[in-house]
């Protein structure tokens, strides 16, 4: 076991998979000579060369499309998009091509690409660098969407995503790249599907994904001091969603809160709570609550930004509301 930062875990997965399989390549802006905006490919350009660590011009839609085309003939491209905001430029090739080619071709072709991109708010990056957008990708048939919460999943899910035959969107987070965790030295994999109970509890289920998992964990600590036992579920995969794990937890606690960093409309919380209504409505004994961002473009000013984005205290207060304590 070694303490590993999130970015180091991603880098290690790249390195091992590229060493194993010559069909694995990485593409993105500044990933090669410059070492990657979040260092996820640092040092790999020298090791694998410019034909496998490909520095791309600022042309997100077409370099994603080139990765997709290459994947159709057996390559395994890992495409880095510097910010999920920029992934909007690549929606045509992701949503209209990668997600649909297997189906449109009657299963003859597949697009085993991995797209990695940070989707979250950091500190005062303002509206055009703070999008989250998980809800947009999770609504597209033909994609897998996963959100590793820490180094263990960042490494293990990237390894799985590279080997999976489906297009996989991995949504990371600017505030998690330096997060550290002990992970095994030997190779391991973490599956792309399946939610995970990462803290057991009996009184309320707190559901999060990506960075909001950490808000839920912090809130759970505080609730414990109040004598409230919170269970925390990390969704891990937003497409498909593991409804079974959610149902089991809700049937145990009878209360639920969903925390998302994105805006609420047509969002992760809407989807999860609707699923709960369909799967275990009668298990609930209080109204579910969503904790989410304000429905505004993310502001630059730090006070406004703080007001727009949910934090651990918001999750804590939300949980008290579900518990009928406020």
């Amino acid at each position: 076991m070694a303490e590993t930062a999130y970015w180091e875990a991603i880098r290690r997965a790249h390195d091992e998979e590229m060493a194993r399989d010559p069909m694995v390549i990485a593409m993105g802006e500044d990933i090669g000579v410059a070492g990657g905006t979040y260092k996820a490919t640092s040092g790999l350009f020298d090791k694998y060369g410019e034909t496998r660590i490909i520095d791309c011009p600022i042309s997100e839609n077409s370099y994603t499309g080139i990765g997709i085309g290459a994947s159709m003939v057996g390559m395994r491209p890992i495409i880095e998009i510097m910010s999920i905001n920029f992934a909007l430029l690549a929606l045509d090739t992701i949503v209209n091509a990668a997600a649909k080619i297997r189906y449109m071709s009657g299963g003859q072709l597949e697009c085993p690409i991995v797209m990695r991109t940070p989707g979250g708010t950091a500190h005062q990056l303002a509206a055009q660098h703070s999008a989250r957008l998980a809800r947009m990708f999770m609504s597209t048939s033909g994609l897998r969407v996963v959100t590793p919460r820490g180094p263990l999943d960042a490494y293990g899910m990237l390894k799985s995503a590279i080997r999976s035959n489906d297009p996989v969107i991995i949504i990371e987070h600017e505030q998690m790249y330096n997060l550290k965790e002990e992970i095994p030295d030997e190779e391991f994999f973490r599956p792309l599907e399946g939610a995970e109970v990462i803290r057991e509890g009996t009184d309320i289920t707190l559901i999060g994904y990506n960075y909001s998992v950490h808000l839920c964990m912090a809130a759970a600590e505080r609730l414990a001091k109040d004598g409230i036992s919170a269970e925390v579920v990390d969704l891990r995969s937003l497409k498909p969603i593991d409804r079974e794990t959610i149902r089991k937890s809700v049937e145990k606690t009878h209360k639920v809160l969903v925390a998302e960093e994105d805006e609420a409309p047509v969002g992760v919380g809407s989807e999860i709570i609707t699923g709960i209504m369909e799967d275990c409505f009668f298990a609930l004994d209080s109204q579910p609550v969503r904790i989410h961002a304000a429905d505004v473009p993310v502001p630059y000013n730090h006070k406004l930004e703080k007001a727009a984005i949910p934090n651990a205290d918001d999750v804590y207060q939300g949980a008290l509301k579900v518990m009928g304590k406020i």
Partner: protein
Amino acid sequence: MNDADKKRLLREMIFYRRFEDRTFEAYMERKIGGFLHLYSGQEAVATGVLEMAVVGKGKENDYVITGYRDHIHAIKTGAPPREVMAELYGKETGSSKGRGGSMHIFDANQNFMGGYALVGQPFPLAAGLALGAKHKGTKQIAICFLGDGANNQGTFHETMNMASIWNLPVLFVCENNGYAIGTHIARSTAQPSQYKRVDTAYNMKSSQHDGMDIEEVMAAAKQAIDYVRNEEKPYFIEFMTYRFRGHSMSDAKGYRTKEEEAEWEKRDPIKIFSKKLIEAGVLKEADIKAMEKEIDDEIENDIIKFAEESPEPKVEELTRYVLDDNPDPRWIGPLQK
């Protein structure tokens, strides 16, 4: 080119025209749904270019990709015509098992990598196919057929740039038929000569040729394909052509004059090549008539019959092919708890 090849190519072009004419009839009979974009008038381009490429040899083929006007490109690459027709009929035996339709013909066994309905989307996909071929060192090239209208998409500029800086073995074939759907090129495009849009801008070799004379198409395509394959660099080749039918079936062609259509019909690629072959004594008018009869019989008795009689996809299989239907649990799960 020997006489047998000349006769074969003329037969192919007549077959393509008749095939499209027959799809038109089937569409009017409501046997074919959705949108239908016919290739009539442009046959010399796909036929001539792909004649010079590696096609019809299965997985050894060059990679071919195009837009939604894709039936003929698929067939010339090696897709069985009866499967293309069955796809138009939405049948399980179709090229894409009835999931794609007219605009999305695929035949992976022949490296026909698909028809795409987002104008300009095949540019980067083609460059990616070329990147894959180059990476694997197979000497295959990618050939991307698109119309002049596609060149006003961002993907055109982005892809020309990357294909050039990365030396990708891809041939971009611009079928300039003068109209982006129903808007004349003079009203949509600042530089009407498409090949001029890549030479200095993206440092890519390019040229422009008559697209109605198959022999001229073949001569130009051979040079371009040799260059792409041997130099491992991209090439942009433009053919001046015309589509005789509307953009799609709903097109009343109100944007162009009868006089213009008549002028281009004089340059019908089938007429031009027939005339040449008759004058050279390769065949007679009566031979062409016999050829047409034989083609019509084949289309009716084999191709249409196959499409008509084939089963539709099963509704129970609606959700097949969305994701890998047999995923490896090591990568996919379930998560061990």
